[in-house]
Every structure is written in structure tokens, then in C-alpha cells.
């Protein structure tokens, strides 16, 4: 990885704001960004990315290439949590392994957005359908996590309070997959952006386009604070999980880059796809896990995703993955 690329990534207002927040938390500054401001920022980013993706998709159209990428996305969203689960079983019980696996099988929208920002600075394009791919990759891991628990957990413990013997009732699964707020907003605004096209985008661009980078910087300040608070407690999760939180993303990235090359994705699409596979969810999946696998310890799935994988990806991961892609694609 060229030092240049790394510096260019880090000397970006958004990334620096993240570290400003991170240090605030580590130094125990009373600085905080109280709810619901973080919710405002994350809603804003989801709407912006969805809308813009839909608009781009309307311009490019839904081609065979697009469908290929979407299938690849679903494939990885199913595969990653499965192999992650078996790796995690080395150290953790079924419940924790499944919950952590689900976290890493899903994606982080902010990492995706940061990567988009990075490409943007380099002048490299990526397709609007990557947002659709992201949307498709959010939920499968939740379902896989629940399936894994149903398969491997001792039956007696498995009984639900409702008297359900299985965790997998269709309603719940549909709920978690399509109605979970971030999936719902992304999908919804993707469609709105697609349907309203040029005219629609022009109307909302001053808010959802022009302010995007500034809002990302603002939100990353908050992400930094939250990540910093968790970082302080990171030792509690143990060396195994700390290692896992760096190595699994890198491994996922290698797999993703391989697939991207084989299936002939463009450079920009390849990076975005790689980042999706390498990132872990710290919002949607933890909420779902807390609800459906209460036996798992939330610190074990939130802390690594938020305090290690996320900072790693946005500072080193993205330029690293890009360097590799750039070398291979040439």
C-alpha cells in the first residue's frame, strides 16, 4: 500500500473527525453528541446514499452486470457468517459465535460511505447498484445466525418464551430482513431515487448531495466518540476476538477481491464490494441479536465491530484493499 494513498485517506476531514471523536472518548472529555442527533445523521446518510444510488441506477439501467453483482453480494452475505461461525466456535459457545458471526456477515453502511468518499477523491466511479448490493447484504446474516443457533444449540435452552420451539418463525425473519429501519430506508429511497430520476435528484441534491461530505464528517465525530468509549473496554473481549476483528475482515476482503476479479467487476465496484464483505454491522444486527439471541453477550459482538473493525477499515483497510485491487486490475 503506498504511503501516499494512506495519508490521502487519513488526511481527509471525515476520517480526522473520527479520530477527533475517538481521542475525546479516550481522554474522557465530556464531549458527547446526544441522541437523537446520531440518529439524524445516520438517517440522513442512509437517505442520501439510497436516493443517489437509485438515481444512478436509473441512469445506468438494470443490466445483466448489475444482476451479477447482486447475486455475488447475496452469496457472500450467506457465506461469510457461516465460515465466521466455525472459526468463532474455537473460543465461543454457540450463542456468542452465532451472534458475532451475524455481525460480521452483515455490513456497515458508514464504512461503505467512507469508501465511496475515498473513491470520489480519487476520481474513480462505482455503480449506483452497489447500494442495492449493500441493502441485500444487510439481513441474510441475521437469518443465518438464527439458523446456526437452531441447528447447534442444545434443544431445551432453545425454547422460546412464546412457547415457540424454533427461533425461525417466518414473520420474525421477514421483519428483521425487510422492515429493519436501515434496510427499509435504503430500499425505499433507492426506489424513490430510481422512480423520480433526474428531476427528483435535482430537487433534493442541495440537501442530500452537496452536504454529504460535511454530514459524514459530523457523523464520524460521533462514531469516534462511541467507538472510543468501547475501545477503552476492548481488553475485556480477549485477544482472540481482537485478532479476529482485524483478520476476518482482511480475509473476507481477499475472498471478495478474488470473486470481483473472476466476475469482472470494475475497479470501483470491486472496492465497494470488498468493503461490504470486510465490514461488520454495529447497528442493525446487534439490535436483532439482542432480541433473538439474548443468551449472547452484547459486548462481544458490538465492541469488536465498532471499536476495532470499523476504525481499522476506514483508516487502513480501505486504502489497503484499494492498493491490492489497483495492482491486480492494473
Amino acid at each position: 500500500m503506498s504511503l501516499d494513498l494512506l495519508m490521502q485517506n487519513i488526511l481527509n476531514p471525515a476520517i480526522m473527525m473520527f479520530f477527533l471523536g475517538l481521542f475525546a472518548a479516550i481522554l474522557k472529555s465530556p464531549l458527547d453528541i446526544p441522541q437523537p442527533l446520531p440518529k439524524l445523521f445516520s438517517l440522513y446518510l442512509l437517505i442520501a446514499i439510497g436516493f443517489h444510488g437509485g438515481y444512478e441506477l436509473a441512469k445506468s439501467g438494470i443490466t445483466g452486470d448489475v444482476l451479477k453483482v447482486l447475486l455475488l453480494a447475496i452469496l457472500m452475505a450467506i457465506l461469510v457468517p457461516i465460515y465466521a461461525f466455525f472459526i468463532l466456535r474455537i473460543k465461543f459457545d454457540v450463542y456468542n459465535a452465532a451472534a458475532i458471526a451475524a455481525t460480521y456477515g452483515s455490513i456497515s453502511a458508514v464504512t461503505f460511505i467512507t469508501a465511496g468518499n475515498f473513491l470520489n477523491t480519487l476520481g474513480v466511479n462505482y455503480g449506483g447498484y452497489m447500494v442495492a448490493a449493500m441493502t441485500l447484504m444487510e439481513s441474510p446474516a441475521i437469518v443465518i445466525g438464527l439458523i446456526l443457533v437452531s441447528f447447534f444449540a442444545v434443544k431445551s435452552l432453545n425454547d422460546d418464551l412464546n412457547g415457540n420451539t424454533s427461533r425461525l418463525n417466518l414473520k420474525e425473519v421477514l421483519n428483521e430482513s425487510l422492515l429493519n429501519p436501515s434496510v427499509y430506508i435504503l430500499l425505499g429511497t433507492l426506489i424513490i431515487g430510481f422512480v423520480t430520476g433526474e428531476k427528483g435528484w435535482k430537487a433534493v441534491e442541495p440537501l442530500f448531495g452537496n452536504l454529504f461530505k460535511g454530514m459524514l464528517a459530523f457523523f464520524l465525530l460521533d462514531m469516534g466518540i462511541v467507538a472510543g468509549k468501547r475501545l477503552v473496554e476492548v481488553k475485556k473481549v480477549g485477544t482472540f476476538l481482537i485478532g479476529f476483528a482485524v483478520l476476518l475482515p482482511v480475509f473476507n476482503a481477499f475472498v471478495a477481491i478474488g470473486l470481483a476479479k473472476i466476475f469482472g467487476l470494475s475497479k470501483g465496484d470491486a472496492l465497494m464490494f470488498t468493503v461490504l464483505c470486510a465490514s461488520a454491522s454495529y447497528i442493525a444486527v446487534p439490535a436483532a441479536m439482542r432480541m433473538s439471541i439474548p443468551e449472547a453477550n452484547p459486548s462481544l459482538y458490538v465492541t469488536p465491530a465498532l471499536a476495532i473493525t470499523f476504525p481499522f477499515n476506514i483508516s487502513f483497510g480501505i486504502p489497503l484493499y484499494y492498493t491490492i485491487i489497483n495492482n491486480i486490475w492494473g
Partner: protein
Amino acid sequence: MEKAKKVEIVIDSIHLSYLLEKLQKVGVSGYSVFKDVIGMGERGMMAGDELTDVFKNSYIFTLCDEETANKVVEAIRPILKKYGGICTVSDVLWVK
């Protein structure tokens, strides 16, 4: 003023709607809910993580007669066992 029982509960916000359903099934005449309560207990800090919505509690109380209070307690006990949280019962005079 009538003698009544006040049942108080602190539980993960994420299980709130499930708990309220239970309360209604048991037949309480009403309840009050305070969202965004933070706290510390057996399962560690619930510091109201500003991002994930996962580490936050809700506090609920319901006024009822002794019989209903017992039913509430029985309905809640397994929830507390499974998901954590606390529950108390105390005496109050209900102004009617």
C-alpha cells in the same frame, strides 16, 4: 384513597413492547413508561449507547390490586430470568 400495589420494572428497551403485551394480557388497567433509563446491574453497564440502541433500559410501573400484582409478577419472572432486568412490588394509596 384505596390501597393498591405498585409494580415497578426495569428492562432492556428492546423487550419493552413484549413486556407491555404481557401486562395487558394479565389485565392491568394501565401503565406508565419511562424510556431512556440507563443503569448498572448483573449484566454490566447499560450506558445508553448513543448509536446501537442496544444498551438502554426502560422503566415501567403499573398500579393494581394485590391479585393482579401477583399475576404481573408471575408473568414477568421468566422474562427477567431470560433477558435480565429487575422488578419490585410496594404499597401505595391510590387517589381515586
